[in-house]
């Protein structure tokens, strides 16, 4: 079930009402049933996959804790990790590797008879697999006690707000919260509802509206001027942020209503000044997962510069592969690896350059310049994330890089060039100006809120205003969602495909 669907509009209040109406000892059971229903809205039989990994990891955790022999402990850990990664490998990566091996065999003239598997990727597989793996790893490391209550452990994996697209939680943060009794708290509940409303606003008003403009451009980029492609790429950066952070906001908000705090997943990533800072603000739950369970065990940045760069490349390539079984995602990961390594290599040079250009004299100007450049390079990388094939990604990325000089050249040199149309994706301006106005206004609201947070004022700043101001803001938000939300485009959340 999608968060922006009518079914969820019914599901959420019923589940929340039951949560507070039931005695504490029955709440875990109700939440678990609700989470099962939530998951089974997609493909019901895939719940068996979840059950398989839950059973394995539950017993692995207990055995890990009981066992004192290091070798045996490692065996249980490996069993758990193999089960989880195995499920991921079969359902997500088998066909990808199989197709590539077949292509290689065909090139070499070999016979290759291993068939592809006909199956749909279970929703949220990458997310709950990583969450389950973090549990057994933390138990192994001694940072987390094994959960003895099977139902609570199952709920930890299947908890519906973050089941299909994160945040990827840690057992230290989440498990104990299911044992704690949560009372109805007016402020916490209203803050949760406000966060959900804001998440929905980002998703249905901004992200889905952007998709109506840019999907045709990414589907057939040859039919558009370079400047249209350039703008579409920039808008995709906004779309994917609003889509994914919108989902996270709804998940975190829904959980907060019930008194369960999930970790923050986004922290104004496009306000970052460097690529490494970007990755500390974007999909925080995943980047910290990779840092704690891959980057640091590989040596992190403590084993010399070469190893640091090597570790970064490995982490980003695997991160790319985690996002999707396609070479475009791996390439996207590789581009970010390159940016990170380049960033480290040129850190001092860039600082000197900012001093020479006098940018660093004014901190605000410096921040603006750095964030703008970062936004452009991240938008470039997103092309590979969004495009269906490498060929299309290459085409779009080359057009992206030369868009502005080509556009300026066309405006100056070609008297017959209709300079305004490409800015509106060749649409008849008289018909679409209002949609662009709504989009611009929505993005301004989003930017203003992020600017407030950047200055250390967030929801508490709004909560501190007079009641008429607060009600006006929340009423506008709800009315924007009702009047300008895009609902029947059947728009799933982008990160659902992972």
């Amino acid at each position: 079930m999608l968060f922006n669907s009518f079914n969820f509009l019914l599901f959420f209040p019923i589940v929340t009402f039951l949560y507070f109406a039931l005695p504490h000892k029955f709440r875990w059971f109700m939440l678990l049933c609700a989470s099962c229903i939530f998951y089974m809205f997609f493909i019901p039989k895939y719940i068996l996959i979840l059950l398989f990994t839950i059973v394995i990891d539950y017993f692995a955790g207990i055995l890990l804790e009981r066992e004192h022999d290091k070798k045996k402990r490692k065996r249980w850990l490996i069993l758990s990790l193999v089960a989880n990664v195995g499920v991921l490998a079969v359902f997500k990566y088998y066909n990808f590797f199989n197709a590539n091996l077949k292509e290689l065999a065909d090139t070499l003239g070999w016979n290759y008879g291993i068939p592809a598997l006909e199956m749909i990727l279970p929703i949220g597989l990458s997310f709950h697999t990583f969450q389950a793996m973090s549990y057994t790893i933390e138990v192994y490391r001694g940072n987390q006690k094994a959960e003895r209550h099977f139902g609570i452990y199952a709920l930890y994996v299947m908890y519906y707000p973050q089941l299909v697209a994160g945040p990827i939680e840690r057992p230290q943060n989440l498990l104990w919260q299911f044992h704690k009794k949560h009372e109805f708290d007016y402020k916490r509940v209203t803050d949760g509802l406000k966060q959900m409303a804001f998440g929905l606003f980002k998703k249905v008003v901004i992200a889905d509206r952007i998709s109506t403009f840019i999907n045709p451009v990414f589907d057939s980029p040859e039919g558009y001027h370079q400047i249209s492609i350039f703008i579409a790429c920039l808008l995709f950066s906004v779309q994917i942020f609003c889509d994914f952070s919108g989902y996270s906001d709804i998940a975190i908000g829904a959980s907060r209503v019930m008194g369960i705090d999930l970790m923050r997943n986004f922290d104004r990533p496009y306000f970052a000044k460097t690529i490494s800072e970007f990755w500390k603000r974007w999909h925080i739950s995943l980047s910290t997962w990779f840092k704690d369970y891959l980057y640091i065990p590989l040596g992190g940045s403590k084993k010399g510069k070469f190893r640091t760069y090597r570790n970064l490349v490995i982490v980003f390539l695997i991160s790319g592969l985690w996002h999707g079984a396609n070479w475009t995602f791996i390439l996207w990961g590789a581009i970010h690896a390159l940016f990170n390594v380049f960033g480290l290599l040129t850190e001092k040079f860039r600082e000197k350059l900012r001093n020479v250009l006098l940018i660093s004299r004014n901190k605000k100007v410096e921040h603006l310049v750095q964030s703008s450049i970062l936004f452009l390079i991240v938008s470039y990388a997103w092309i590979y994330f969004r495009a269906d094939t490498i060929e299309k990604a290459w085409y779009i990325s080359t057009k992206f890089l030369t868009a502005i000089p080509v556009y300026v050249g066309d405006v100056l040199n070609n008297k017959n060039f209709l300079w305004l149309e490409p800015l509106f994706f060749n649409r008849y301006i008289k018909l679409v100006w209002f949609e662009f106005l709504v989009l611009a206004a929505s993005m301004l609201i989003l930017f203003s809120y992020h600017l407030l947070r950047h200055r250390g004022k967030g929801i508490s700043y709004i909560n501190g205003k007079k009641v008429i101001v607060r009600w006006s803001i929340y009423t506008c938000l709800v009315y924007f969602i009702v009047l300008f939300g895009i609902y029947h485009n059947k728009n799933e959340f982008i990160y659902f495909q992972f």
Partner: protein
Amino acid sequence: MKKLAFKIGLFSLFSFPLFYLLSNFYDNRIPSLNLDKAHQVLKIQNSNFDNVFLGSSRVYNVIDVNLFDSIMKQNSLNLGFGGADYPELYLILNEFLNSKNKVNRIVLQVDLWGFVKVEEAYNHPFSIEKYLHLAGREIPDSLFFCHSERLKYWPRKYIPFFKYAEFNIVYPIDKLMLNRKNRTDYLANKGSILNEGNKKNFLFNRVSDSIIEYHFDYRYFKSLRKLIWLIKQHKISLTLFTSPSYPKFMNSIPLYRIAMDSIMSIAKEHKIPYYNFDKHIMCVDTVNFRDYTHLNTKGAKAFTIALADSLNN
């Protein structure tokens, strides 16, 4: 919890009248915007027609009514709607006849696709968004209840503006407020639009369709009977026909024969003349088709002549 419930109640109290007025405004404004052929058809009143051709795109795109009328020396209208299934045709015909339009004969297109589940065939799910402004009337409401998401039926009916908020993409607020009419005249050629199609893709269009396993949605048999009953109730002469399809494609579909036999038995049961053009000589050559189930311009003209000839006899 009481404080929260109070605030939600207060907000609803303030918002409901606003959205109620907005919803009424939309109900009144939508018919004049001409956004769809159905909206234009529903504005026809007090008119007389010798023939009305009713069906999906296999009427809309394949019967040249101007040519037909020139042969028959009659006044006809093409009420074919792309992707329309029997419930939608029932709604349109009911509203059309209730607008005091007189029709001598209805020529209704029937085929396999009218009975197959919407997710498997080419008919669209009941296009409720076209008829939201008719909500509140008995027949549209009963069709909304039976043929669209049932869970949403009551919110659409009782929560002001819910139905339009759901379809913001079809009815953006600026279009309604600025009264931005669609300039397409769907009735320019008496409702017919012939389509040449993309011949280059013909042989590869829908090749995989022949291996799709289709299933009947038995509600559509009921809907067809209801449509026939409505026509008979208005004492209008009825003729059934099936537009030409490419036989090699149709014969590969297991349900095809069963569907054709069902149509024949319905026609016999109600004593309705039925013409199946699937076996017509024009079906032999792909030169008359733009895809396996639709004629191109040349084929449509040839078919129109053949249809006129059959109806004349």
